[in-house]
């Protein structure tokens, strides 16, 4: 007697909850999602093509523009790939300084994730609190390299400068208050009934499916596997630090939330260890002025960015410009899991899931 029909609606590309210019084509049965088709490319700037036409050193500023919420992680991945291509050993002091900055970047990135994820689901209060602390991270980055978002804070072979006077003290002050702040956020969300109703059981994915889809970072670890590049393919001197990889048990949005909260604490732990045992010595290895890796040299360098595995593949043809640069962006691969995650959920849950996989569209589209 009664018949329902499926409805196709469009979400985005200009939508406040899509964290950029992401378009989703939703096929709905009532309010239940039958299928989600992400349409991407609105922010495609051809970074890989641009990189082929620039010198090795001039590519680093381009990488800032990939994931503009965690520019340091992208710098790190690219610079590390060039160092691997050349066989350059980064001095221990520079390695430790990189770890400090990378983990500070992770905290800043997770704070902006927390703010916007909360805002998307309707927990507005958290937004300003998290941005208050993120502001302090950005101030620290500004103190180090002069920029607040697009840092270009690394050089091939090391770091450009020592931490400025008073910088480590400011960082310590920030780290001292961070646990209290995280505890504050948790009082707002962790036990909050509305928050739990919106996140628990939403977007459950099992470890096998998540691995197959190429998910990495907290999105994968929510499903109960402890795969983290910092442990499984350690770079810089991550092997020297004690830290835990938080994993979830159910693989839902709530687990992924808890993991990112814990990761901020672990990042703080790593920074404190690195500051404590900051080695002396040079901060920049000797690298030829004109970088010309031999023909046929290829290198793949994996890092754990705040969003997952960020890797760069470089191919050299013996000239001073890279022959091919491939940016493996965690967001591109994590977004690929969105259709699987959102099947069978409500329209409003899509917003929670986009926040949960933590994408930055600059990183997706490159």
């Amino acid at each position, binding site marked *: 007697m009664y018949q329902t029909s499926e409805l196709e609606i469009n979400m985005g590309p200009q939508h406040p909850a899509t964290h950029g210019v992401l378009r989703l084509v939703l096929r709905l049965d009532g309010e239940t999602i039958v299928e989600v088709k992400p349409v991407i490319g609105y922010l495609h700037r051809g970074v890989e093509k641009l990189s082929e036409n620039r010198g090795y050193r001039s590519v680093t500023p381009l990488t800032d523009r990939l994931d503009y919420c965690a520019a340091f992680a992208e710098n790190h991945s690219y610079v590390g790939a060039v160092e691997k*291509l050349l066989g350059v050993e980064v001095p221990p002091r520079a390695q430790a300084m990189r770890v400090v900055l990378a983990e500070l970047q992770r905290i800043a990135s997770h704070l902006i994730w927390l703010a916007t994820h909360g805002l998307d689901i309707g927990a507005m209060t958290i937004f300003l609190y998290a941005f208050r602390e993120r502001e302090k991270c950005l101030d620290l980055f500004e103190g180090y390299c002069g920029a607040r978002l697009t840092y270009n804070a690394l050089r091939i072979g090391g770091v450009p400068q020592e931490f400025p006077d008073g910088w480590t003290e400011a960082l310590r002050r920030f780290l001292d208050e961070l646990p209290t702040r995280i505890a504050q956020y948790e009082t707002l969300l962790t036990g909050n009934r509305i928050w739990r109703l919106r996140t628990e059981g939403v977007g459950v994915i099992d470890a096998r499916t998540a691995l197959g889809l190429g998910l990495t970072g907290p999105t994968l670890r929510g499903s109960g596997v402890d795969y983290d590049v910092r442990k499984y393919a350690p770079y810089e001197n991550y092997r020297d630090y004690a830290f835990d990889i938080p994993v979830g048990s159910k693989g839902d949005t709530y687990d992924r939330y808890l993991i990112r909260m814990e990761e901020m604490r672990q990042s703080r732990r790593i920074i404190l260890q690195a500051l404590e045992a900051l080695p002396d010595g040079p901060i920049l290895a000797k690298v030829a002025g004109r970088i010309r890796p031999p023909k046929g040299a290829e290198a793949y360098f994996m890092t754990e960015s705040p969003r997952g595995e960020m890797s760069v593949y470089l191919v050299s043809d013996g000239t001073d410009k890279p022959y091919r640069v491939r940016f493996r962006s965690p967001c591109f691969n994590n977004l690929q899991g969105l259709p699987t995650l959102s099947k069978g959920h409500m329209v409003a849950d899509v917003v929670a899931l986009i926040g949960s996989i933590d994408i930055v569209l600059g990183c997706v589209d490159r």
Partner: protein
Amino acid sequence: MSDQDQPKPPQPPAPPPAPAPAAPAAAKEKAPDPLAAEVSSPALERLRAVHGAALVEVRFWAGLPLVEVGREQLVPVMTFLRDDPSCRFDHLSTCFATDVPERAEAPLEMTYCLFSWPTRQLLAVKVRTTAETPIPTVSAIWPSADWNEREAFDMVGIRFQGHPNLTRILLPDDWTGHPLRRDYPLEGKPGDHKVYR
């Protein structure tokens, strides 16, 4: 895989950091570069033993084994690499296409970066083809290849046989040409898109 617990082999073979980049042109062919030294890879040994005939070329750079396989053997080799207990490449980190026009007989190259979380090994597998000859998709082996192969199709124009939805992904559907080809100008071609240029 206890010997793989230190999965950062590039440093040991290259202790002198400065000389390597200082004289790359002189050391091009004559003296083999220390970075090109062979590294031990249990996965590669297994691959050589079982699928030795499928391997066209094996070389190394900075501890990364680069293996080229024939187009026809791609799917059996990849399935083997995923399932064999000493390989277990459960993570297709990325795959991408490169245009190498100097190699006229097969100018397009697809590179698959495989990482094994359990055994902590990294391996790059390459396949060469032409614009006309499709290569088999690996999206049935690793679903994550789906979008990456679409991007390779979009940017370089490699076609994949058996791909579930081989359409453009980053560029608009009515774009003509493939921007990551060497002959594609950096600032685009007039008329490559109807609306935006």
